């Protein structure tokens, strides 16, 4: 916010040490307009504009404001602002603004529904003022031209949460100063008149990229983000019947945190995935779509094999593992993985993952493991991480099934460094006639490979003593 900073050192000497409370002089009003304008930018717009009635000195001060926060659900003098008043108020405020460069603008419109062009008029006005931080929250549709948004090179921090279709006319977009981007509900489509179905998004100083509930209907999207550290993307299930799968290429050599949520309708290719330490993959597969069953294996596999250098991996698959038998076969080893969390998994897949994670310290199963053949573990070789690394095993969603008991037995009998195994029972067991004391005794009777391994029991409410 350097442009808000001006040197006014002359005033410093005029002010001796004094307490606001004790000293009766009005130190605040003596500050330069630019400083006051910046202070006011941290107030809700109504309160900032209201300072014009403090004293004669303050009549025009608010026009130097460097930021405005409008919120239509704010109480005003204990009352709700009617919609028409709010619109007039925003229009009025914007029309009185001085020429100072504008830093922050936030529109929180959660109480009323507006004409889509009304909101875009406000956004256009602000984009034209060289805004650096723009934040819009709105539950419904907004019409916005992608040109005016992507031509606003002053943007540093952009948060758009609204229903909006950005029709991109050019094949490349660049925001040179953007450091933080958070999109929610934004559709990116290529303009029907353009020939190219490819798009390059270039954000040279972007650190954080978040996109939720997005739909991208392009053939190829290339994201050039050399300084990106965090990438998080969540797609809505694709409703379109387009057969071609969109491919997203991410050039982010400094990326450390990666998060994906979706149905793999988009292929994600990381140009240099080895910098990623932490990866989270949530895949929700729509069973009604029969066509993709076989492909989901290969797609999952392709996404996962990019994370061979991660230390922390979260895999939440919904309705996938029943089909995805091969997703975990022939994976590259996760050479550095020490924390693995899985929501539900097939026995074969779990074994594959364990064999491929020689450094694994913590294994968390949130909802147990699918039924597997009891021969699976008797014939299995002991994964390398069991010899030297695995210390914590959290076994959630335990149903006291035979195969689950054999998995617990397998871990206890082979993990040489195991310190703690926590078994959390499924909620329904409370209402069953299974005698949990007997189950505990059975588990405790299993031979332990690690002499200092402790066994804990918990239900959904916490540890049981």
């Amino acid at each position, binding site marked *: *916010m*350097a442009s*808000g*900073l*001006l*040197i*006014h*050192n002359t*005033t*410093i*000497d005029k*002010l001796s*040490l*004094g*307490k*606001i409370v004790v*000293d*009766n*002089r*009005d*130190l*605040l*009003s003596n*500050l330069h307009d630019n*400083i006051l304008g*910046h*202070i*006011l*930018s*941290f*107030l*809700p717009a*109504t*309160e900032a*504009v*209201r*300072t*014009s*009635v*403090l*004293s*004669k*000195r*303050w009549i025009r001060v608010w026009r130097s404001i460097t930021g405005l926060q409008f919120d239509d659900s704010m109480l*005003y*003098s204990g009352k709700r*602002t009617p919609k028409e*008043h709010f619109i007039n*108020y925003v229009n009025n405020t914007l029309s009185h603004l001085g020429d100072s460069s504008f830093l922050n603008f936030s529109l929180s419109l959660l109480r009323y529904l507006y004409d889509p062009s009304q909101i875009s008029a406000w956004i256009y006005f602000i984009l034209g003022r060289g805004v650096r931080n723009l934040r819009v929250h709105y539950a419904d549709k907004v019409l916005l031209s992608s040109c005016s948004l992507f031509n606003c090179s002053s943007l540093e921090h952009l948060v758009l949460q609204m229903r909006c279709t950005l029709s991109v006319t050019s094949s490349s977009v660049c925001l040179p100063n953007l450091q933080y981007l958070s999109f929610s509900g934004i559709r990116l489509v290529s303009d029907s008149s353009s020939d190219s179905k490819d798009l390059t998004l270039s954000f040279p100083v972007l650190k954080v990229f978040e996109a939720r509930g997005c739909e991208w209907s392009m053939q190829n999207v290339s994201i050039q983000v050399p300084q990106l*550290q965090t990438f998080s993307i969540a797609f809505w299930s694709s409703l379109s019947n387009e057969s071609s799968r969109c491919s997203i290429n991410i050039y982010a050599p400094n990326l450390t945190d990666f998060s994906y949520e979706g149905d793999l309708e988009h292929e994600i290719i990381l140009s240099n995935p080895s910098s990623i330490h932490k990866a989270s993959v949530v895949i929700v597969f729509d069973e009604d779509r029969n066509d993709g069953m076989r492909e989901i294996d290969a797609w999952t596999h392709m996404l996962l094999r990019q994370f061979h250098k991660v230390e922390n991996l979260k895999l939440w698959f919904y309705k996938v593992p029943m089909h995805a038998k091969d997703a975990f076969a022939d994976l590259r080893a996760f050479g550095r993985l020490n924390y693995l969390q899985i929501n539900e998994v097939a026995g074969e897949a779990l074994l594959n993952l364990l064999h491929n994670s020689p450094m694994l310290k913590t294994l968390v199963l949130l909802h147990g493991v699918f039924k597997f053949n009891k021969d699976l573990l008797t014939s299995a070789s002991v994964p390398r991480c069991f010899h030297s690394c695995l210390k914590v095993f959290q076994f959630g969603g335990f149903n006291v099934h035979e195969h689950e008991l054999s998995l617990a037995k397998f871990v206890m009998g082979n993990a040489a460094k195991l310190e703690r195994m926590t078994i959390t029972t499924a909620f329904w067991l409370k209402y069953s006639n299974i005698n949990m004391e007997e189950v505990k005794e059975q588990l405790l009777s299993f031979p332990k490979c690690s002499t200092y391994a402790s066994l804990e029991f918990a239900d959904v409410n916490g540890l049981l003593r």
Partner: protein
Amino acid sequence: MSSSVEAITVLSSDGDEFKITVSAAKLSKPLNWMLEDVCFSDDCDEVPTIEVNSKTLVKVIEYCEKHAPRANSGASDSDAEELKKWDIEFMKMDVKDILFHILMAANYLHMEGLYDLACQTAADLMKGMTVSQIRKIFHIKNDFSSEEQEQLRRQHPGCSFD
């Protein structure tokens, strides 16, 4: 400047000497320019003066030293959280007494983080207050005549004058 220098000495406007590490001084653009200047080479005795009084400068340096490690190297989120908590505590202390001095010093020394923090703190003192409460807190004298007040009331129909 010599690369061996790790801390520099500056004078406050009251003439007191203060030490500030090079990495902390880099948080301020003018100080950074001074660093690049010859005045800190080993064979120079001249100590530059910073036009900030001693009481304020102590706090400014404290802020710089705390924030320097993060500013100079990308730090993790947990560090950022911790730093945010520290900032809140920093502004809670006796800083309130010298808030305006800190504000002007941060502005003068081009320190964005501290400037924003001080402005935010000042704004928090006004937030949710009525006009007359703000006048009282900051000793702002209401110099409007009753006719002018009437006129303003008409201009800002929603504004409360209480």
